[in-house]
């Protein structure tokens, strides 16, 4: 079991702030998803917390010891990025042998099982795999490492829906069997909301919000109804997003609805529904852009 504590970490590249004062505690046996725009510095945060790059300011503590001085980083953290380049002619079986050398908890049998499921031949060479197979292989390596903290950068990004669904199911089952911490960036957060415990939203290298999945489900709601009717009902309500399609208005509110409020909306045929997590993120980013915060 391992705990990762980030204290005000910042990273500058050519005098440009890539990550700004990022502070967060990644506790054991939880799954964290990091959401952000493409250039928001999510990958840089992953590089910093895994010790792959050095931070300009701040400290990352792994089990209470500064990650730069921690001698067991490689046993405790596994982070194989999507853009990992193995030599073209190296075989899958050789990669598995390397993993077994590097990670003390490495689960060869599980890796074989997943490769068999995805019909990836053990004897095939890394360079001969297509994009989807490479993505799946990286996912399998991360998962089978069974490292106490496993970090994944957009896992299954270029993979079809079915393969992705299967992979996250495997991840869920494996995490239940061998509890450990996962930190992943993702563009498919709504597909994996059953899996994720906490969500971190990043914009321009800054942590702008963090919620548990339950908090999002409890505190954000969609109200959908006829534009005139809904507009007359929403005075004093904290609105973070509005979408108008024809005569139908949908608003996203940020507050927990009381029973009397629910009854009031139902009386006027206003539909109350859950807001997809991605939409919450988009609305929050939009609000920041409107307010000129960046």
């Amino acid at each position, binding site marked *: 079991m391992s705990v990762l504590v980030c204290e005000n970490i910042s990273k500058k590249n050519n005098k440009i702030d890539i990550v700004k004062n990022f502070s967060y505690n990644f506790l054991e046996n939880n799954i964290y998803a990091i959401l952000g725009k493409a250039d928001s510095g999510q990958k840089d945060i992953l590089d910093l917390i895994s*010790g792959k790059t050095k931070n300009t300011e701040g400290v990352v503590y792994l089990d209470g010891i500064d990650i730069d001085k921690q001698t067991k980083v490689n046993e405790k953290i596994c982070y*194989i*990025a999507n853009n*990992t380049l193995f*030599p073209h*002619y*190296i075989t899958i079986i050789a990669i598995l042998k*390397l993993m077994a050398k*590097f990670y003390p908890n490495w689960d060869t049998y599980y890796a074989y099982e997943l490769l068999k499921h995805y019909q990836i031949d053990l004897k095939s060479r890394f360079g001969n795999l297509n994009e989807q197979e490479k993505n799946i292989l990286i996912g399998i390596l991360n998962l089978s490492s069974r490292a106490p903290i496993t970090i994944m950068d957009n896992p299954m990004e270029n993979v079809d829906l079915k393969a992705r669904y299967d992979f996250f199911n495997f991840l869920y089952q494996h995490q239940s069997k061998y509890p450990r911490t996962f930190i992943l960036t993702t563009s498919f957060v709504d597909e994996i909301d059953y899996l994720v415990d906490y969500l971190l939203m990043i914009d321009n290298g800054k942590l702008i919000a963090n919620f548990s999945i339950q908090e999002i489900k409890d505190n954000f709601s969609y109200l959908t109804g006829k534009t005139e009717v809904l507009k007359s009902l929403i005075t004093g309500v904290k609105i973070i997003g509005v979408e108008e399609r024809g005569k139908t208005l949908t608003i996203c509110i940020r507050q927990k609805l009381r029973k009397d409020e629910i009854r009031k909306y139902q009386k006027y045929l206003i539909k109350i529904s859950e807001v997809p997590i991605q939409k919450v993120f988009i609305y929050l980013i939009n609000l920041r852009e409107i307010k000129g915060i960046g």
Partner: protein
Amino acid sequence: MKKLNPLKIHYFSYRLIFVVYWLLILSLYSLFRFIIFKDSDATLMIITLFSFLFSLIVGGYEYAIISNSYLSLKTDRKNFFVNSLIFSVISSLIILFSIIIVVIISNYFYEENVMQFSSIKTYIPLVFVFITLHFLGNFYSLVLRKIKFIKSLVFLVVITALIFKGEFIYNTLINSVLTILNSSNVSLTTFVSVLIIIVVNSINYYAFAVKY
């Protein structure tokens, strides 16, 4: 033994490359010895030159591809750097033994004595030159490659040098290889190699393990 784990990645990554290299020098030797030059000394020079180039390429490949693969699995840069130094020696020895084997095969069939290639005095500077070139390859990947337009610049410099000073470069190359193969200046070659190794490696260490 855990400290030597990165060598495992070298083993898996380079084994095929070295087999290909060995087949290539064997083919080159046969081609030049029996068809083009029909002279063993000149042929030996060609495969030595080819091996110099190979050592340089392997050195470049080390920090262009292998280090990335390693860092994807582990983050211990210093450990990789040390293992890379060990590998450079192993690689140079393999290259040297490959040449020796080719020469032995040739001697066995044709009862030739190719230059002074049976002398240990030849092997020492040769290994040092292979190691130096390996480190220069490392230096290219770690430092020079990051400079904008470096590939075009290197290409231009090489082409210009070949056009205007082609003969001089050819003669210098041949003379240098001859000096090494004839063991005529062992201590100077070794001294210059060691000097380059120290300077280049200090820069490489700084670029890879300190400032990244």
